[in-house]
Structure formats: C-alpha cells, structure tokens
C-alpha cells in the first residue's frame, strides 16, 4: 500500500482543501484507524482521541440523524453509549438533526448543518469536534468544509469504514467500541494532568 505524505491536520487550509483521498490517504482496514492521515492500530487511536478530548477547551459532539433518531433497534443503546463517552470527557452536544441546507440561516447556538458547519464552530469556538451518526456523504462534505475554514480538530466515530477527511477516524463503531473508547478516556482522565493538548503520542502515526 502506498504511503501518502499528506497529513490531515487542522485548518484553515483554504477555501477548497483537497479531499484527503485525492491526496493518497486511504481508509483503514478492520481493526485499524486513521490519525491525521496515517493508519494506526485502533488502540492507539483510542488513546489519541481520549487525549484530544480531555485536553480540549471546548469539546463538542455533533450527533447526526443516525444516532439522534431512534429509527431502528439498537440506536437507543448506541445513543446512550455516546452520552456516556461525552460525560467522561466533559463534552456537550450540538446536534445535526438533518441535512437540509436551511435558509436563510441555521441558529448556530443550537445546531450544526453539514452545508455550512463552520458557522457553528466559529460561533461556539469549538476546538475539538466529534462526528457520530452522520451519514457518510454529508460527513465527508462537512469535514472538508471544517478543515478548509476553521482550526477545529475533527474526530469521526464512523459506523461504516471511516472518514479520511477527519483528523482522527475510527471505523465500524458500535456500542462495544464506544465502551472501549470510553474506558480509555476514563483511564486517562484518572491518570490526571498534565494533559498535552498537542499531537497525540501514538506509536506508528508520527
């Protein structure tokens, strides 16, 4: 597998940042994850996510329709697991209830919209944002816009194959994986400060 030199780092990267895929960043295989464009073992990514969230000034989860709406069996459990993780890392949620490009404008204090996610990030000064339950096509668009126009550090907890346009992405995220991630965060929080707030200490990623 070709290794890309391109790093998926916080922006602002300019009006139209390239899609990370077009720069050679490939999605991780099962059991692996991506940290800033590099494939790493999943446990390393858990650590990196926990560090980022615990060090953040204003960490915010952006739950999308697939987790906000209890539309099939199992979603309520997943939602509960997301809420537990948020509690452990001290994050709050600003929802993305649907994908309509609302005019004249959304209220950035209460929601985030994938067509202009920067409004919510700027308005609330969000330094770390977590996508969960956002369908892939809109997560891809929104993550690219965020990288283009803000310095927000993005994390995607993806139920499918991951998002190369997020700075950190997990794939196949289900309740079990959320619980493992929550445990990693709990352990790190218990270890107490100092928190780095800079690049995560992950083995193969750097």
């Amino acid at each position, binding site marked *: 597998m070709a290794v890309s030199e391109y790093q998926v780092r916080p922006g602002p990267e300019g009006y139209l940042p390239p899609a990370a895929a077009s720069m050679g960043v490939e999605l991780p295989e099962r059991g692996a994850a991506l940290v800033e464009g590099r494939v790493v073992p999943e446990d390393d990514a858990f650590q990196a996510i926990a560090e980022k969230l615990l060090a953040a000034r204003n960490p915010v989860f952006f739950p999308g329709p697939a987790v906000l709406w209890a539309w099939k069996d199992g979603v*309520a459990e997943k939602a*509960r697991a997301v809420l537990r993780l948020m509690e452990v890392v001290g994050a709050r*949620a600003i929802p993305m209830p649907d994908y309509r490009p609302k*005019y004249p404008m959304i209220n950035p204090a209460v929601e985030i919209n994938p067509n202009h996610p920067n409004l919510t990030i700027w308005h609330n000064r969000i330094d770390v944002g977590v996508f969960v339950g956002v369908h892939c096509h809109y997560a891809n668009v929104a993550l690219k816009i965020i990288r283009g126009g803000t310095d927000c550090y993005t994390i995607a907890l993806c139920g499918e194959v991951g998002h190369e346009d997020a700075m950190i992405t997990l794939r196949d995220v289900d309740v079990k994986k959320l619980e493992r991630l929550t445990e990693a965060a709990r352990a790190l929080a218990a270890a107490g400060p100092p928190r780095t707030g800079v690049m995560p200490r992950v083995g193969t990623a750097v």
Partner: protein
Amino acid sequence: MSKGLFRISPGFEDVMPAEYKELVTNGPYGRDLGVKDLGTFKELIEEHPLCAGCAEALALRLILASLPSPEDTVIVGSTGCSSLLFTQVAVQNIHSLFGNQNAVATGLKRALRLRFPDKVKDVVVIAGDGATVDIGLDMVMQSWFRRELITTIMLDNEVYANTGGQESGMSPQGAVLYMAPLGKKFPKVNLPEIAREAGCAYVATISPALPRRLGKVVRRAILVAREIGPSYVQVFCPCPTNFKWPSAQVLQKIRDRQKEGIFKVREYVSPEAEAYLAGLEVERQHDEQE
C-alpha cells in the same frame, strides 16, 4: 420515513432544536389533518426566504397541510422559487434537474413500489410553470401517457420568477415582464385540457384564495394517483414581485381574475376516479367535515 421512525433517542431530547421536538410531539404525521386544522398543529414548513406576500409560498403551505400521509410522501421538486422553500420542509423531498421532475418521480415511484410492496408511498411533483409547461413538458406528458401513478402540481405564478422575470407558457397574453418587454404574443397554454387528453384521471385548477377547496383538490389528486392514474393540479398563484403588485394585494388580484372569468376553478374526475373516491371511507369523512 414512517411515523415509527420519528422518535428522539433517549438522552438527546434536551439538545434537539425546538422545531424538531414540536414536530415529534405535535406534527401532522400519522394524523388525519388538513387545511381546516391549520393553527392547531406544528406545520411541515419552517421559516423560509420567499418574498413577502408570495402566493406560491401560501399555496405550498396549504398543499403541505393537505398531504394525506406526509410521513409516506416524497415530493419531487424542480429549480425555481419553490426550491428555496423546500429546504425548510419536513417531508422527504428530492430536488431534480430543472424540467426532469416527472421522469425522476416516475423512477422513484416504481422503486418505492418494489422496495415497499405493502405500503402506499405517495410521490408528488411540485414544480413551477416554467418547469412544468415549458422546459419539462416532454417529461410531464410522457409520464401521463405512461399512466404513471404520480401527482403533478404546477405552481402557476405566470412567470419564470426565480431567474428574474422571463415569460413562460403560462404568462397571460400581453404580459410585460422584466425580461419580456415587448409583451407576450400568445395566450396561456391550456395544460389542464392537455392533461385530461393525455390520460390524467384527475385534473383540477385552484388557487390559494380558496384554501379549503385547495386542500380538498390536493387530497383527491393524491388519492387518485394511488390507484387509478396520474393526476394534475394547477395552482394559480401569480408572483407579486414580478407583476409589481404590493404584497398585500395578491389574494385580491387572484379573486379579481376569478371574477373576471380569466381564472376558472375547474375539476375533472374520470368515471373510474369518481367511483374510487366515492368508495373511500376516508374521503367521505373529509367531505362531511368540509
């Protein structure tokens, strides 16, 4: 979407924006509501950017309140002023390429029938006069010839409003518009007549100045398209911005046109559609409430 899918995951209720919560607790999904109930439930349409006094916006509000099963409806729209409003609407909707709306609706209806054979899914095209009678006429008529089970609603504002005022086939003869300074040389196209000849089982013309009647017409058109054949509703909603009318006068202008006999409320129901509607218990109940 079905009503059962419309539940907020426990724990996230607090952060849901108010309008979504209201749709869940007091929306029209799964309830037998109509124009007469406006003001008592959370409407499917939010704040929108159409001009003050826009008759098309009022027509859409009434149409949305009249959908027999909003939770099982997909609206297919086309480019034009209405497309700016659909982004604020809590019904599944597809924005199609200008003029292609009836072709897209055809494919969608057929796919939904395969995917949900035991469910009724209403596919309703809502597009401007330019999209329906001019650029999309081929697709519109072919869908009628093929007897596709879809409802086509034209928002007849008598102009290409969204692109700044070109004349359309529905502009009245003599109309002088921002981008048609010489005045239109031929009369409005008689699309209702064409619809009937082309195989529509239900055809009606209506305006938002008659809200209850509009509600009834839309409902009947959608019900007929479930079983009998294609249906067509032409909603007269002239554009105050392009015709340079004060926004508060639009409804009066519509009424004046009706009085003068220039705009006529009409309804054609095929014998099969007539029998079908008569047999529908639900339709009867509605009629009684009118």
